[in-house]
């Protein structure tokens, strides 16, 4: 299951939903908002998603992980909206009978989610223009448009 969340992610509840008697291993990945990126102090982040396609692509990635690895349960959730330092941006939980499958699927999921799901991140800094990550052109940081 992949979904977007406009409000804080509750890992304990998600973890609970993954519990089952056949599972021997559970690997979780949490992506937290760091207080820095590429050496710049970060104050806040905005995540924006293209919801219809983000959910389709996220579900496709979950289905791929199920096909590739011996897993039992998969839950992946990505936040949208404004996040502060330490907030949970993305959470992926995988259960399996054995840890090999759980680790491999977990890593596949977060790598593919980050690379393919249409979600964008805008970083806010102290005393500098916010930047849309990965959207710089001609060697410069991409600047947000001035307010209209």
């Amino acid at each position, binding site marked *: 299951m992949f979904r977007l969340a406009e409000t804080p992610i509750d890992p304990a509840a998600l973890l609970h939903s993954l519990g089952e008697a056949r599972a021997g291993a559970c690997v979780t990945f949490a992506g937290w908002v760091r207080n820095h990126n590429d050496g710049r102090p970060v104050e806040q982040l905005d995540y924006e998603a293209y919801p219809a396609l983000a959910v389709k692509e996220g579900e496709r990635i979950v289905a791929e992980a199920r096909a590739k690895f011996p897993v039992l349960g998969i839950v992946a959730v990505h936040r949208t909206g404004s996040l502060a330092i330490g907030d949970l941006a993305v959470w992926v939980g995988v259960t399996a009978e054995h840890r090999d499958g759980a680790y491999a699927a977990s890593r596949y999921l977060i790598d593919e989610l980050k690379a393919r*799901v249409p979600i964008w991140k805008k970083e806010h800094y102290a005393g500098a223009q916010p930047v849309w990550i990965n*959207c710089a052109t001609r060697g410069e940081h991409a600047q947000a448009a001035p307010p209209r």
Partner: protein
Amino acid sequence: MTLTIHVQYFAILREQRGLSRETLSTTAATAVELYTELQAKHGFSLPADRLRVAINDEFTAWNAPLRDGAAVVFIPPVAGG
């Protein structure tokens, strides 16, 4: 031929366009032609080769023909996680 196209903007494109969605008339035959037209008009900073495109909420080839009434989204480089 003139088509009616629904465009939705996200992230840096939304900010550079100054709005989230618009419906427009175009003679562009493909998504890449439409982006080229809109980039010239609105000064989008990202070249088409840094973007992907979705039509009717599915990733689509840039040179696929546009159909009347299509919902088009240009997708800047993603940065989830």
